[in-house]
């Protein structure tokens, strides 16, 4: 993963902070696949990876299963979800980070 950082950060960024490792790599790939209309910003700080986009992001269980090549319970992401920006919504089939206010 390489860091791609815009010059000024929007006030409306939301997304997960993942513990660096195999799941983070897969989740970054899944997030890019699940949010094709978004410019996903990935900042790799080695022990944690900040993944964000304007207005937030979604990650789907199905996509994680395709990338990992094995069954994946959405809850498993919690092991590597060390934090997030914005608010969170959880479901068996997806996790979503979002913001209510547009600033």
């Amino acid at each position, binding site marked *: 993963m390489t860091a791609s950082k815009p010059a000024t950060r929007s006030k409306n960024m939301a997304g997960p902070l993942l513990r660096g490792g195999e799941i983070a790599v897969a989740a970054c790939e899944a997030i890019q696949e699940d949010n094709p209309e978004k410019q996903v910003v990935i900042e790799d700080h080695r*022990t944690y990876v900040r993944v964000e986009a304007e207005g937030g992001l979604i990650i789907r269980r199905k996509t994680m299963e395709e990338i990992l090549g094995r069954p994946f319970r959405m*809850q498993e992401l*919690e*092991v590597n979800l*060390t934090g997030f920006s914005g*608010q969170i919504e959880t479901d*068996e089939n997806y996790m979503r980070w979002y913001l209510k206010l547009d600033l």
Partner: protein
Amino acid sequence: MALLDRSRWYDIARSTNWTPSYVAESELFPPDQSDPYGIPTAEWETFDEPYKVSYREYVNVQREKDAGAYSVKAALMRSQYYENADPAYLSLLKMHYGAIALSEYAACQSDARMTRFSKAPSMRNMATFGMLDELRHGQIQLYFPHQLVTLDRQFDWAHEAHHTRNWATLAGRHALDDVMMTRDAMTTSLMLNFAFETGLTNVQMIGLSADAANMGDFTFANLITSIQSDEARHAQIGTPVIEIMIRNGKKAEAQQAIDVAFWRIWRVFALLTGIPMDYWFPLEKRDRSFKEYMHEFVITQFERQLLDVGLQRPWYWEQFLDDIETHHHCQQAGIWSWRNTVWWNPTGGLGPDERDWLEQKYPGWNATHGKYWDVIIDNLRNGRPEKTEAVGMPAICNMCQIPISNKGGTQWKARIYQREHEGRRYNFCTPVCRWVFDTEPKRYKDWNTIVDRLYNGEINPPTAENILRYMGSGVVSEGGRDAHGYDWVKGYDRPGTEAAE
């Protein structure tokens, strides 16, 4: 056997309120424990947690988290990392474990209060998991340093610190008792889950992990991010509480609770996180400055979450931004000067290159905080180390319990903010700590700082030796000394350095 999807049974499983018939509701949920705001129970029943988990999922996931943390520890134990680590880095670990391990047990009790007394059944459910999380954090952060006690007795403070009257313990406990231990279930959630866990814990548990990994300590880096993955979940208990309070006309009360808690925790965490990040890590291992981490996790991320849930920045935000540039620098100088009072060995750590780094990260550092260190460095370079050890007691803030200090040198900003209350004079470090006192004088008025205890005869006789003993220094372990034996001043022997002339 196939399991039902969680969403198909979750609502039924979490609807556990009932109509009490043997006791009045006010006995089942006493307002001073459950909800002093008088919000109807039906409103609390709308509590919908954003981060859902079932018990079965919880146990599976937590098992996996623990297996990960313990196996990394076991695998790296043979690397002899801690035997060979930089003594200033070990000081960070001693301070962390002493300050944090038993605070986690305290947080376990806070979650237990929500589990028992919240009128929101879903909140009771989530707080049960929060309670188990904090139990895990207490145990794992006692177990990890335990192997280090044979290496260095100061690691015993992981278990002992909270049982002593060390000034740093008093400061931490005063803040945590205020926000976690002595509030009703709903206010605890605002203060602990939202103000504390959504905000400042990230800097210690995620930000610091990047620096720890640079030091090669993957055991600790892995441990703290694992802990924070629990926090990320149970911190979400606070968000629906805020929504329900705003909807029921209690926005000002929610705002005040968060303003009080955020400031109180900030004053303590700036020492815990800020000092190691900006002074103790070798220059080449520093990922970013404390200020930059604060910008990432608090000023950007936490402030945005605060606005998103319908609240405002705390009224003292400008003062807080100024404090990020000031507070931990003052306390690094103070703690180093009173180093024999603490249970770790702080390093001065201020060679010429480190000063350049600080000047770059905190413009004006040399002309303000640096002036204090100029005197220290001069004394050390001229064979007068005894003159660098502080004598006597500093003025202590009656709220944060931390020495009252501010920028010196070219900008002399240190002053005391006072309040007379019922014939007693209280000293504060900032208008914010004084404001916290003013919100509820009854709560705070009887507490004595370590200096008050010297003057009221509790520390008797008031000799230097006895003050140290009172604080546990020399009792649990030897007190602190410079971690590097002043080696860091050798950098000034280099020709052309500022202090070399």
